[in-house]
C-alpha cells in the first residue's frame, strides 16, 4: 500500500503535512505530472475499456491519462469533487463529447472489442448500443408514448403498431413507471413530476435495448423519495445491463455500485470494489473525499 503511494506526484505527499496545505492543493490545476491509478482499473473480459484517455477543452486538459475497464453487468460508480472530469469521462464512452466543437478526445476505447472512435464506427449505432440518462430529466416535449417510441421508431425496431405498443409498455414497466402513466400515455412527458420524468428518460433509454447505460448524476435534480425509486430501478436493471453511473452522492455510490472509481482534477486516483473504497481507501485523497473533508 505504501509502495503504491510513493510514485505519486509530490503534491499529495505534501498535503499530508497540514490541513491548510491540502485545501490549497485541491484547486491546483497546474499539476499535470505523471501518476498511477491505485487499485484495479482493469477487469477480465470487460464490456467497455478505455486506455490512456486524455480529453481537452480547447487548451485546457480535462482528463489526464485515465485507463478504466467497465465489466459485464456490473454497476460502476464514478465519484469525485466538481470539475474532476467524471462526467466528461462518461460522455467519452458514447461519444457525446463529439457535439462539443472545442472538445478533443485521445485514447483507445472499445466496446466488446470494437473501437469506439474508429473511422468505421457509426455514432448512431454506438449510441443505440450505449444509451444515456442525463443529469437533468430531459423528456422530449411530446407525449409519454412518443418519448419511449421515438428510439425504436428511428431504428426501425418495431414492424407494426402492436410491436411498438409492446416495446413501449415493456420499457415503461422496466422503468417501473407503467402503472403510474398507463392511462395518460398521450399526455406530454414534460407534465410529469421530476422523478417520473427521469424514469421516463430511463424507459426511453432502455427502449432501444442498449447493452450499456450511462447515467450522468441521474438523481441530482430529484428528491430523496424519487432518488430511492431510481436506485431500486438501477438494482433491477443491472441484471440485464451494464451501468456506469456518475454521482455526487457517496451514499448513492455505496448503495448501488459494485465498483467505484474516484476521480480528482481529471485524474483517476483510485478504483476498487465499492466496499473496499468506502471502508479502506488506499489513497489519502480518496479518504479525504469520502470522509467529507472536501468535495
Amino acid at each position, binding site marked *: 500500500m505504501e509502495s503504491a503511494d510513493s510514485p505519486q506526484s509530490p503534491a499529495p505527499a505534501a498535503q499530508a503535512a497540514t490541513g491548510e496545505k491540502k485545501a490549497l492543493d485541491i484547486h491546483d490545476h497546474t499539476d499535470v505530472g505523471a501518476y498511477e491509478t491505485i487499485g484495479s482499473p482493469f477487469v477480465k473480459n470487460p464490456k467497455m475499456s478505455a486506455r490512456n484517455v486524455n480529453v481537452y477543452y480547447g487548451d485546457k486538459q480535462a482528463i489526464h491519462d485515465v485507463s478504466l475497464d467497465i465489466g459485464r453487468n456490473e454497476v460502476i460508480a464514478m465519484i469525485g469533487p466538481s470539475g474532476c472530469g467524471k462526467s466528461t469521462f462518461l460522455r467519452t464512452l458514447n461519444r457525446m463529447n463529439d457535439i462539443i466543437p472545442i472538445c478533443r478526445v485521445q485514447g483507445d476505447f472499445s466496446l466488446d472489442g470494437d473501437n469506439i472512435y474508429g473511422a468505421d464506427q457509426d455514432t448512431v449505432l454506438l449510441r443505440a448500443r450505449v444509451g444515456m440518462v442525463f443529469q437533468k430529466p*430531459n423528456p*422530449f416535449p411530446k407525449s409519454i408514448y412518443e418519448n419511449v417510441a421515438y428510439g425504436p421508431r*428511428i431504428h426501425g425496431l418495431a414492424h407494426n403498431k402492436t410491436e411498438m405498443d409492446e416495446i413501449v409498455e415493456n420499457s415503461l414497466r422496466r422503468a417501473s413507471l407503467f402503472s403510474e402513466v398507463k392511462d395518460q400515455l398521450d399526455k406530454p412527458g414534460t407534465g410529469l413530476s421530476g422523478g417520473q420524468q427521469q424514469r421516463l428518460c430511463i424507459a*426511453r433509454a432502455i427502449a432501444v435495448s442498449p447493452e450499456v447505460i450511462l447515467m450522468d448524476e441521474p438523481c441530482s435534480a430529484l428528491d430523496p423519495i424519487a432518488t430511492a425509486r431510481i436506485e431500486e430501478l438501477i438494482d433491477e436493471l443491472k441484471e440485464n445491463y451494464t451501468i456506469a453511473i456518475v454521482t455526487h452522492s457517496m451514499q448513492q455510490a455505496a448503495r448501488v455500485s459494485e465498483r467505484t472509481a474516484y476521480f480528482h482534477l481529471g485524474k483517476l486516483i483510485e478504483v476498487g470494489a465499492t466496499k473496499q473504497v468506502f471502508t479502506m481507501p488506499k489513497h489519502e485523497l480518496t479518504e479525504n473525499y469520502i470522509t467529507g473533508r472536501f468535495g
Partner: protein
Amino acid sequence: MNNTSKPDTFKHSEAIKASLKKRYARERRFQWYGRLAVLTGFVFLFILLFDIVSKGYPAFTQQFIKVSINLDLDQLDLPPNATQEQLFSANYLGVIKASLREMFPDVSGRKDKQQLYRLLSVGAEYNLRDRVIENPKLLGHTTDIWLRAHSESGSYLKGQVDAAMPESDRRVKDLQIGWLEELKAEGRTESRFNVAFFTNGDSREPEMAGIRVALYGSFFTLLVTFAIAFPIGVFSAVYLEEFAPRNRLTDLIEININNLAAVPSIVFGLLGLAVFINFFDLPRSAPLVGGIVLSLMTLPTIIITSRAAIQSVSPSIREAALGVGASKLQTVFHHVLPVAMPGILTGSIIGMAQALGESAPLLMIGMVAFIMDVPGGVTDPATVLPVQVYLWADSPERGFTEKTSAAIMVLMGFLIVMNALAVYLRKRFELK
C-alpha cells in the same frame, strides 16, 4: 466578541432600514415611469387609429341618387330587338342626361347643365348599362333607377361640405346643393355600403376607385415572398446553426447577413430592376418580381430570428435525441425545429409584415402603375396596398382623402389577419 458584534448588527439593521425607504421610493418611481411610457404609447396609437378611422370610414359608404330614366329606344340609338353587342354600346350617357334635364326642367345654359350632370358619377352610365343588359325588359319604359353619385355630391350628402363657405372655395356649388337638397327631400338619395371599394380596381374617379387590385397584388406578392423567403431562410438558419463548421467563412457569411438586414430597401428595388427585369426579362409591375425583391429584403430577418430561435432550444433536447441514437438530421428535424418553430414563425411574420408595408422597392420595379384590372396571377400587372395608399394620397381630388385612410385600414386589417394566423400556428406548434 459579543460586545462588539451586537451594536454592529443593530447599527447595520438601522442603516438598512434607513435605506429601505429610498429603495422602495425608487422602485415606485420606476414603475410610474413605466406606466407613463406605456400610456404615452397608447395615447399616440389611439390618436393615430382615431384619425385614420374617422377619416376613412366614410369611404365604406357610397351615395346613390334615384333617377327616373326613360329608356327610350331612339334616345339610346337602339333598334328594336337589339343584340347584346348593340346593348353594350348604346348611348346611356345621353339617356341619363336627358332624364336629369327632365327632372329639373328649369335648368338652362350649358354651364348649369354641366353642373347638373356632375351630380352623378361618370360610372353611372355603366351602372345603367349593366342594369339594362341584366333586364332588357326595362327598354322602352320609364323606371326609377339608383345611380352612383359623384364623389363631390356624395361628400355633400355625407355632410362633409360646409355650405357656409364661400362658393368659390368649394367644389360643390350652390346650384348643386339646391338640387341635392331637393332630391334628398323627395327621398331620392340613399347611402349604401360601398361594395365597389372592394370589387373595383383603381380609377380616376374617387367614387369608382377600389382596393381590389392592390389587395390581390399584396396577396400574390406576399405569397411569392413567403414561398421563397421562408424555406430558404429557415434552411439557411438550420445549416448555419447546426451543420456549418465554425470558421472564418461562416463568420463572414454571418456578418454579411447581419449587414444585409440593414440595407435600405430601395437598394433591393434597384437590384430587382437591374437583375430580374432587365437581365432575366421578368414581367414589369408583376407580383412575381415584387415578391422576389421583397423576399431578398425579408431573408436576413428570417435567418437571424430563426437562428436565434434554434440557438435557444435547450441543449438537453439535442442530447436526449442524440443519446437514443438519432442522427444529426433526425435530431434537428424531429426535435430542434418543432421546438424552435414558434420563434421561427414569429420572426417570419415580422419579416412578412415588413414586406407587406414596403413600397419603396416596389416603386423601382414598376408596381406603381395605374391598374384597373384585377390580377389573375403572379405575372399579371398589379400594385400593392402601401403603393395604392401612396398613389391615392398623391391625388388632388377630395374623395381620395377618405380612400387613402380606408386603404390604410384595409392594410391594417390584412396585417391583423396575418398576425392572427401566426398566433394560431404558434399555438398549434406549442401544443404538440
